[in-house]
């Protein structure tokens, strides 16, 4: 039997846009390339918002990536993407170019990491062009459900939103009618009908999609598999107390930037806790946010140090002096990759008590929860964590290894095989 051809579709390529889902997509593709019986192909979107020039040739959106015959860029204009209905306004992208690409590649399985900037119509086009192909879709956030950046947080407050509906969505976006939200949902679900299996990296994410109407036979929890880092961070230097806390990721409102800064301001004067910020994209935030952040940082000199952005392979070095990793997000999160990074390097986590964070970090076992969005609660948790070496050691003992890539790969291979058989049954019966 010939190799199973699996086409991975990602909305960005990590060489152009660093990000968790992007890094995972490339890692998975590379892991699959080392696996017998499977030939992976990666199609990553590139566009005017990430590329410094048009990486496209006349007459085609496709080009090859860094000499790898199985990696392809697909160029789409950011302006052509309809962020409300999640579709491309340029339909020839599907009818012409993606059709040709699918016919040329003829994958047995299309595993989508994302359809952002390409468009959700791709799902229907795959089904039409390749009736036998199994379609797998990994869900990374709530974009299909929620127009508010896929966060499921209300626009007018930071209240977490448990459930979308045309009425509730219209409350968040008064300028968009309930009818348009109804149409949006029907449109997305119409294309989602072509997906054979959804993968949710966390149970809480799956629950929200179940409530939204994805049938339980079509969705399952499958955590991101990760490659173990080539080296682990050394233990922190022995000090009297575990006072160093690290934050990794975007410094944005949804990531809880203000919550952690306010908490640091609320610490007792004698506290020795120190927060090290390894953050990116501050310049992309609103001016008000940047000004507020600068004001807080100025007033917290000596307690908070901003160290700029970082590369993934610097993590062992950056973690070396840290005792804790802090995840103060005010949205649900899915399965934050920084949790896996921290656990690889044996650092317990302090995090908000909701969503993917509460699911992946066990309170009192391998980390500590605080009340989401509550700076006071976080301040008290930090004081407890940074003054109690015994607690730190016991949480550290409680850390388990993250889900390894090889287990993930073998689960996916089984799933692909199962779905390909299932498709054969469907098309033979048709």
């Amino acid at each position, binding site marked *: 039997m010939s190799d199973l051809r699996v086409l991975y579709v990602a909305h960005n390529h990590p060489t152009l846009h660093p990000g968790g889902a992007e890094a995972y997509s490339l890692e998975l593709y590379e892991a699959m390339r080392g696996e017998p019986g499977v030939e992976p192909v990666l199609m990553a979107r590139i566009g005017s918002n990430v590329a410094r020039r048009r990486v496209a*040739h006349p*007459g085609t959106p496709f*080009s*090859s990536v860094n*000499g790898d015959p199985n990696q392809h860029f697909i160029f789409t204009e950011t302006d052509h993407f309809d962020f409300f209905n999640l579709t491309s306004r340029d339909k020839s992208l599907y009818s012409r170019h993606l059709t*040709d690409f699918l016919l040329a590649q003829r994958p047995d399985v299309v595993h989508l990491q994302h359809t952002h900037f390409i468009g959700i119509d791709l799902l229907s086009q795959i089904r039409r062009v390749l009736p036998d192909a199994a379609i797998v879709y990994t869900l990374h956030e709530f974009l299909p459900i929620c127009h508010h950046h896929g966060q499921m947080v209300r626009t007018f407050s930071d209240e977490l939103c448990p459930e979308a509906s045309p009425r509730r969505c219209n409350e968040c976006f008064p300028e968009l009618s309930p009818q348009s939200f109804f149409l949006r949902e029907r449109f997305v679900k119409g294309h989602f009908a072509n997906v054979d299996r959804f993968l949710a990296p966390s149970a809480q994410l799956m629950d929200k999609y179940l409530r939204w109407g994805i049938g339980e036979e079509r969705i399952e929890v499958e955590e991101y598999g990760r490659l173990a880092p080539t080296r682990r961070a050394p233990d922190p230097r022995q000090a009297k107390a575990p006072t160093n806390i690290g934050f990794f990721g975007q410094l944005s409102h949804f990531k809880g930037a203000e919550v952690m800064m306010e908490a640091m301001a609320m610490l007792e004067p004698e506290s020795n806790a120190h927060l090290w910020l390894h953050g990116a994209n501050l310049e992309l935030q609103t001016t008000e946010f940047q000004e507020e952040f600068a004001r807080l940082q100025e007033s917290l000199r000596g307690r908070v140090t901003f160290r700029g952005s970082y590369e993934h392979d610097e993590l062992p070095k950056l973690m070396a002096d840290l005792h804790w990793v802090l995840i103060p997000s005010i949205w649900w999160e899915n399965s934050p990759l920084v949790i896996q990074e921290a656990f690889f390097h044996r650092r317990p986590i302090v995090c908000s008590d909701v969503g993917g964070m509460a699911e992946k970090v066990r309170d009192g076992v391998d980390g500590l929860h605080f009340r989401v969005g509550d700076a006071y609660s976080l301040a008290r948790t930090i004081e407890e964590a940074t003054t109690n070496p015994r607690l730190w050691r016991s949480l550290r003992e409680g850390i388990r290894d993250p889900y390894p890539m090889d287990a993930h790969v073998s689960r996916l291979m089984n799933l692909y095989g199962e779905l390909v058989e299932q498709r054969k049954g469907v098309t033979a019966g048709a």
Partner: protein
Amino acid sequence: MPETVRERTSTRRSRRSEARSARLAVEVELVVDKERVELQPTERADEPDGKLKALLRDELAGLDAERRTAIVDELASSSLLEEHGSLELSGSLHEIREVLRERLPTCLVEARQPVGLAVEQILAVDERSFWVSGWLHDEDGEGEVTFVSPEGARVPVTADAFRFERPDVVQFYAGLQGNPTRDHGFTAFIELPVPSLLSSGWIAELKTSQGVAVEIRCPDPELDLQAVRLKILGELGSRGPVGGPLAAEHGRRALTRLQERIVGESEVDSIDVYGEPPAAPAVSIVVPLYKRLDFIEHQLLHLSTDPDIAEAELIYVLDSVDQKEELAAKARELFALYGLPFKVVNLTAGAGFAGANKHGIEASKGGQLLLLNSDVIPDRPGWLRGMREFYESQEKIGALGVKLLYEDDSLQHAGLYFHRTAGSELWENAHCFKGLHRSFEAADVARVVPAVTAACMLVDRDRYEEAGGLPLHYVQGDYEDSELCLRLAEAGYENWYLPTVELYHLEGQSYVADTRRVPSEYNMWLHSEIWGEEIEAVMASFDAFPKGDR
């Protein structure tokens, strides 16, 4: 005046009994003999002049209006103008027209007048064919417009014109009662029986079904070729889809004529020879150059390291003629540097991609032709030999194309097919596997394809000529190579794609600018119009994306 001439003249006159004549130009005279009024060649160039006005007054001015108009038309349409046409003759005919023609009242365009006529442009496609546009308004839409050339030839326009609504004209006449004209606008490609040489003096007449007859003076014809082409394309682009009835009934004829003229006006100016090209080459490589001369330095380097190329005849054709000196200087240096002999064909005027190839091919000797773009750079030596060996192994081969790559090793060309969007009647050229990596398995199969690109194409000279060569009727290039391939297929040959030969083709990054929209749409329409049925048949049996082993 010598005596003998007078004698001869009088002799001839007496022989013709009542006939009277007057000289119109060096070689032409007007002869009036009872009912017969015609142009005749004069036997001597120095015959006396000055009797024309008297002749017209005495013999013709008294005839009725209809007859006079007919005479003017007949004289201006005389086949004598084909051979003896001159500005002097045209001037005399214009004079005759002005004396004999029945003048109609001048049409005044006013919102309360039920009859209106306007001619907005006359574009000279060549000396005898014109593109005219304007509008008319009358009582019932039945009015007929006739154009009168400066020499007096009459061309009815409305019967065959493309008619369309003019909201501005509708608005202008909104106050009038009754059943107003619809489709006020008219555009037409018109042809005169013989050339018209005067650049001013056109008249347009309108006769309505109610018997109203008016005339207006027209703007002078636009003579600049490029401006004419631009304005015709502009009209095609603004009257519905580019490939509508305007293109089918008028645009195609006008643009085809214009393209012939553009190519026809370009001739070989000189051929510069660098080194000693082979005397009896088996294959001639023809490379048109347009503006980007920097590529040839790269191309020559890589050609010079391949011993096969020295045995071939290498011909560059400079289509951007104002770069002649620049290219000559560069060519001298590059020949001194690389020692590879080649020729440069200089033209008197730009001929376009197909036209430049035509000149290059006419100047070449090889029994095989290798059409090559200047931005094609071989990946490794041996490519020409590889192409020729394959070509000679296939008995029925027409055109041979090869694997062409972008700078990032993506496929630029692996054979052409034709694509039609559902619901559209137009076929567009599409590239198999474009953008995928050069090692893509399904693109590694030699096979018969509907067409191959002329960026690098090998074809037998006799077969090329049998198929009529690259067509010249497309505007600024696009579909020449696919049409050539379709013609070869029609003549019974097969077009092949060969993947074992690989070259880079740095196809321009320039996206279709807005100014290129109408020409490309027109070319696509023309290609589909001519070849639609053949394409349909070939695509019915061609699988652009074969499954292969999978």
